């Protein structure tokens, strides 16, 4: 079991694409089909335009969010608090059902795959990067040992106690003939505001040297491989291996 599944961690999946502007009408039509697809699962959708051809699609009160635009396809989840007004009483607050990181990620993968399948008709579109993010806010006791070690190592060369930190580290993990893999490590905390907690984000990316055709069947394999590699990295990082 990966440590992320036992914490309040949320996933994001992003694919950087290169558009072919001659196909933008088809692009928008396919987004409309995706909206039809997700509207079967959710009662109400909030849809906003992003630039000239992009859309931000948000099933209301679900925590899911999709940004589909000519340069990116992104699926994200967050535990959004929903306020329910009660006549004559105090409002209550609800959050979406709590699920493990991998459960949420597999749902996002399902939606990303649905988008990719719809984009098969965009034969001149290509992609060059797949990114997978694990985003979490933790209280001090729940920080896994690997991340504790990392934070302690960062402060070793500095005399005195660190009160506040806001850092991003980009690490190259793997560089092959076809792609390179890197991971942004983001940590932020402020001990003068202990009510806030530790914000930790791991942003793993595989960037291909050459642009690859948007082909759903081939991309499913690549996406699954990226998920396996990123989870392995996240697992080892949290465990301090």
């Amino acid at each position, binding site marked *: 079991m990966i440590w992320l599944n036992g914490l*309040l961690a949320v996933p994001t999946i992003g694919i950087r694409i290169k558009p072919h502007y001659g196909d933008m009408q088809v692009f928008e039509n396919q987004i409309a089909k995706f909206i039809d697809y997700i509207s079967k699962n959710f009662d109400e959708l909030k849809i906003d335009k992003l630039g000239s051809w992009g859309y931000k699609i948000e099933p209301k009160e679900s925590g899911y969010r999709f*940004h589909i635009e000519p340069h990116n396809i992104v699926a*994200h989840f967050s535990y959004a608090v929903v306020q329910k007004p009660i006549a004559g009483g105090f409002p*209550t607050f609800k959050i979406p059902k709590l699920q493990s990181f991998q459960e949420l990620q597999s749902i996002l993968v399902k939606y990303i795959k649905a988008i990719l399948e719809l984009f098969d008709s965009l034969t001149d579109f290509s992609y060059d990067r797949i*990114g997978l993010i694990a985003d979490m806010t933790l209280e001090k*006791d729940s920080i896994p040992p690997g991340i504790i070690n990392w934070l302690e190592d960062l402060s070793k060369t500095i005399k005195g106690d660190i009160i506040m930190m806001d850092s991003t580290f980009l690490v190259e993990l793997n560089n092959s003939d076809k792609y390179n893999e890197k991971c942004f490590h983001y940590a932020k905390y402020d001990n003068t505001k*202990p009510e*806030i907690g530790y914000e930790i984000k791991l942003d793993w990316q595989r960037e291909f040297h050459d642009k690859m055709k948007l082909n759903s069947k081939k991309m499913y394999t690549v996406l699954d491989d990226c998920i396996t590699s990123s989870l392995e990295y996240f697992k080892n990082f949290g465990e301090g291996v």
Partner: protein
Amino acid sequence: MNTSTSFQENDIGLVQSIERTESESPVFRVDKTLRSLSSEEMDISPESPRYSVDTIRRLNRAITRKIPKRVVEELINERQNLVKKKFSEGLTQKEEKRLIFVNWQLDRVDDAETGDEMDRLEKMIELYENFAEDIDNMRKWFISTK
């Protein structure tokens, strides 16, 4: 399709924590400077809620309680084996790190099961201690005014 779960038992706490966070800092914070993939592709921060530490602790415990018993049993067995090996032949550096991680994970499981109750107990003790202090102060005041 309704995917929401009511947090009725914690509603008051959640309300308080949200009110506290709102009064001290914006709940929805925009931080565009240190975003990597998300800064290029989407700004996820404005609508991502920022919970108080108390709420995070409770939500983390709720998620930890979802870890299947089978996995917890596997972790307990793994810890037993690593501890046995530690005292018989010693552990490699990798195994040492694994033992630290397994202990952390099992601590989280324990905390998820008993943490809420322990927090309540701690608050009760704090209340009794304050009450005892008040009584003591009152006793001193009576003596001084005799």
